[in-house]
Structures are given as C-alpha cells and as structure tokens.
C-alpha cells in the first residue's frame, strides 16, 4: 500500500518534468524553427555559388566580394541607404509633430484623431501605391486640379516617376508606422509630469525639451527603426512610382530570385540587407541605453 502512492508520485513527477521540458522545447523550438532556421539557411546558401545555372555547394566568399566589387550593387546599396535615411528623418519629424498634436488634445478626441491617422494601415499597400500614382500622374488629380485652377498650363511631369515621387510615396505609406510608436510613448508620460514641470517654472517649450522629448525617445527610436527598415526593404513602391530612378537595393535582391535564379548571390545580398536592418535596430537600442525604468 505504501509503495503505490510513491510510485504514482514519481510518475506524476516525471510527467510534470516532461511537461516542463516540453514547454522549454517549445519556447526555444518555435523561434528556432520559424525564425532561426530559415535565416541560417539563407546565410548558408549565401556562401555557395552558381556555376552553369547549378548551385555549387562549396564555401566561398565570392558573392560578398561581388557585392563590393561588381556591377552596381554597392552604389545602389548606398543610394538606397541614403534615401531611407532621408525618408526616416522626414517621417520621424512629421510623426513627432503629429503625435504631439494628438497628445495635446483631450483624451476623448485623441482616439479619433489617432485612428484617422492609422486608417491607411487598414488599406492594402498596393492600393495606396496606385492611389499615389493616380494623384501624381501627368493626367492625375494634382496636375488636373492645378490646371483647372489655372495655376499651371502644362502638367508638371516630374511629380511622378522621379526620385521625388519615391520620396513622397515612401513617406506617405510609412508615416503611420512612425506615428503609432511615438504617440504610444508620449501617451505613457504621466499627466502630472507636465503639471510638475510647469509648476516648477518651466515654459511649454522647456517642458517639451526636458520632459516630453526625452520620454518620447523610445517611441521616436522605434518609429525611426520601423521607417528605415520598411523603406530600405521596399522593392515595390520605388519601382512603381520612381520610373527609371526606381531601382533600389531591395529590387536587386528580388531580381536574383526571378529568372536569374541566382540564389547564392541573392542570399548574400539578403544577408547584407538583414545586417543593415539589424545595425539600425542596434543603433536605436544604443540611444536608449540611459533609459531608466519607473
């Protein structure tokens, strides 16, 4: 009699331990399965090479060497980084202003303003690009409108299919991704901080500088990272609105997986793209080092 419960105890104990092990396995296993393995697999492929249309599985740095020395990879990479940085700067500035505007409304109004800015997120990405193209085209809304008003007598041709168009389209499409984190960061600032700041003699501008912006910094950094990563990897918008200027790094990566079927080079370029975005995240993380928990 006395042995029986002991045995069942150990077996239930063993079962519990197995469950814990299973949970750990899932915690660890799922990310490995769905994130790490796919990434590692294309990192691996990036060290192979293509010969006569066949993938040769020997370790080589040739693809990475190609990036630095061959064709147009490096110039396009740099110009894409520069474009993304510009869009990021403009978007973060705009989004901070908009987030501040929302933040200063009464709580009931805030939600509706925020939602109205988030509305484009519920729309298909491709529809937005088409809409932008319809607006900016030579026979588009903007040109027709300006001509109807008599402000111009010839359509402005550079509106669409130019670097300006890429810039405008990327900024418009990714603005909500910057507004949301910045607003959420501002929303977390306790209301009485601003009261205390004013009470201690600070003007609204001083409060903005010493309280709001420092506390909004994590959101601003997140908004910047989102914008940079999304614009840097976008290979559709530039192509569709940029005309002959619409060739970005994402497009080069994409092209390696089409008819060219150069998976090794494509993987290497994708690794470089990934490394760039990770670098952006790391830089953003660095600016938050001094953040103190409440």
């Amino acid at each position, binding site marked *: 009699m006395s042995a029986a419960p002991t045995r069942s105890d150990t077996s239930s104990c063993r079962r519990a331990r197995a469950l814990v092990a299973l949970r750990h396995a899932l915690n660890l296993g799922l990310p490995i399965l769905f994130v790490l393995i796919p990434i590692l697999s294309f990192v691996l492929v990036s060290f192979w090479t293509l010969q006569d249309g066949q993938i040769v599985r020997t370790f080589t740095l040739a693809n990475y060497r190609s990036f630095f020395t061959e064709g147009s990879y490096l110039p396009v990479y740099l110009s894409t980084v520069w474009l993304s940085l510009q869009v990021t700067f403009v978007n973060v500035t705009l989004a901070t202003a908009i987030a501040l505007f929302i933040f200063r409304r009464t709580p009931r109004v805030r939600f509706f303003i925020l939602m109205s800015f988030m509305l484009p997120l519920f729309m298909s990405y491709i529809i937005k690009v088409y809409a932008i193209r319809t607006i900016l085209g030579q026979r588009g809304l903007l040109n027709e409108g300006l001509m109807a008003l008599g402000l111009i007598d010839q359509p402005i041709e550079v509106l669409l299919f130019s670097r300006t168009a890429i810039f405008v389209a990327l900024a418009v499409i990714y603005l909500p991704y910057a507004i949301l984190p910045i607003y959420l960061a501002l929303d977390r600032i*306790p209301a*009485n*901080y601003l*009261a*205390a*700041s*004013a*009470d*201690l*003699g*600070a*003007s609204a501008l*001083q409060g903005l500088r*010493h*309280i709001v912006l*420092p*506390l909004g910094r994590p959101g601003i950094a997140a908004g910047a990272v989102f914008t940079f990563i999304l614009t840097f990897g976008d290979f559709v918008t530039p192509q569709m609105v940029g005309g002959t200027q619409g060739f970005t790094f994402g497009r080069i990566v994409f092209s390696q997986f089409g008819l060219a079927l150069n998976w090794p080079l494509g993987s290497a370029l994708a690794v470089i793209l990934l490394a760039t975005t990770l670098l952006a995240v790391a830089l953003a993380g660095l600016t938050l080092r001094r*953040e*103190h*928990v*409440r």
Partner: protein
Amino acid sequence: MQPLLHLENISKRYGSVRVLDGIDIAVADNEFLTILGPSGSGKTTILRIIGGFESIDGGRLMFDGRDLAAVPINRRPFNTVFQDYALFHHMSVAENIGYGLKVRGRPKAEIATRVADVLETVGLGAFGARYPAQLSGGQRQRVALARAIICEPRMILLDEPLSALDVDLRAQMQRFLKSLQRRLGIAFVFITHDQEEAIALSDRIVVVNHGRIEQEGAPEQLYRRPRTPFIAAFLGENNLLSGVLAAVDGQLGQVDTAAGRLVATADGPLPALGQAVQVAVRPEHITLSPASAATRDALTAEVADIRFLGANILIELTHPALPDTVLKVRRLADGSAADFRTGQKLNLSWAVHDAALLVPGG
C-alpha cells in the same frame, strides 16, 4: 495684517454642477494651513485653482497683494508637492531637484551647490545620483519636497503627500513635515482627507464639504467646539443626539431629546427656540455611574457590549427611547471598567462644557 495668500469668495462650476461656492481662505506667512475634507468635497479643486491648473468662475485669488488671475502656472511664485510626487523618472534625484533652477537659467555651479544644500535639508545628502526608481516611498517624498522648496518660495502646496505611505512612515513623515515647515519659515498649504493628520500637523484647519467651508479654526477648537453635525462626526468620534431647542441661558441651551432634556454649550450664536438642533458628546467625556444614583442631566442606559481595544475600553449602550442610536463611552483600560457587564443599567453624565450644541446645516 495682509494675508500671504487670499482666496476671496471663489466659486467654480463644471457645467451646471457647482463644485465650489463662496470659498474664502486666508493663509498667513509662515502658517501651516490644512484644507480638510472627504473625497469629492472640492479640496483638490481648491488646490488646483491655487496652482493655476484650474480657472475660476467667480471671486479673486490674491498672493502678496497681487491678483494671480493672469499669472500662468509657470510664473506663480510657489511650488507644489504632487500626490504621487510626479518625480521625473528619467532624471536623477539631483536633476529632479535642480529642475526649477535649470529652467530659470541659473548657472550650473549654483544649481549644484543649492541642490546639495536642499538634499542636506531633507536628509538625503548621499542620494543625488540615484534615480527615483531606486528610492523608497519616504525618500521619494523627500525628493518631491526638496524639488518644491529649492526655489525658495514663500509658500508650497502639498496635495495629500502622505496618502501613499504606510502607517509608520506616515507618522515619521508628519514629524518631518512639521519640523521642516518650522525650519524653513514658509507657509504650507496642505490638502488631506485624513482628520488625524490634519489635527497633528496644522496651525489651522479649513474643513470643506460639498464645495463650501464648513468650519475653520485651530485643531483643538474644531475638535472641542464643532459647530455642525458634519464637523462633529468628521473630526474624531461623537455621540449625536437630536432634539429641539427649548430654552436658552447665555451660551447654554436646553435641548429636548427623546431621552429627556439635555444642556449643551453653543460655540457662536444660538438659533431660535423650537429649532431642531443636536447635542454632541465625545465618548471619552462621559462618566458612568450606577443607575441608582439620581443625577441631573444624565441618561440611564443599558450596557449592550463591552469591547477591549488595548489602551481603551469601548462600552456600547442602548436607550429605549433612542432605538437607532448606540451610545459609545470610552474608558482607559486601567481595570476600573471591570465592574461593568452587559445588561447592566448605568447612568451617563458629562460636564456641561463638554456637550456641544450643534445647528444642522449651520
């Protein structure tokens, strides 16, 4: 003498709801004034009006003879200790405290010296480099105080600053606040709903209820001479007996209650004869004696319960003519109450000056 801060007949409405009505408070230099009231009484609104966070619909707010109406928050010549301190969590203790000087553009060296001085004053000399998250509740309280006094205002506002602390710490902080106020020699306007705290700290208390001032005075005066049933019930414990004013002799009034005629002392003008009034007697002021002894101005009641409360014994009695009332009597637990037992009939008596005559709504 001109008061330092004077709220003159201030009123405030939220839509159609009148939250403050005819509030008139004068704060003297160097005074510890407490605005006491239950939640919803309007005391926080008063503080917010003084601080500049709320507008007023009527009356005038004067500081040192100057109307504050057009003075924005950041130009008002006093500072606030907020209810939950509102310490900036992204700044160190020293940065928090120096904030007021920094936004006034004071040189860095001066800020450093003065921050160090104030840290000493509040007893946090070594904590300047810490962050608020690394401090205990009491320490944060001291930082908030230091931040409010560093610009050397002639007055500070304190919005229920002790409510977040536990009992031991609260007692300790009460002593600290009081001594700090004496040392600095500035006026403290203190908001609280805790009557014990108010009594322990204040030079003067203004009791607010339903947006109006119920009574104001020194703590002892309010305690001993409550003018209204609200004050009598809100400050400490009281036995309240309702009746009608039957006769008047100087400040003494004779009140006919269901349990018989009682004599009570009025603080202020007496109402007309025949008006409904109340008699308030503190449980510790009641003397108990065997029912056989016939005493004037006494009630005979039956012991319903005897409760031992440590230093005190609380005796609860009932009177057949007062079915809804439990009469409470407090005795020191010195053994003298050992004779009492439930069911026993006792005489309750008190000194005439210990019975307060209250006018409802007055």
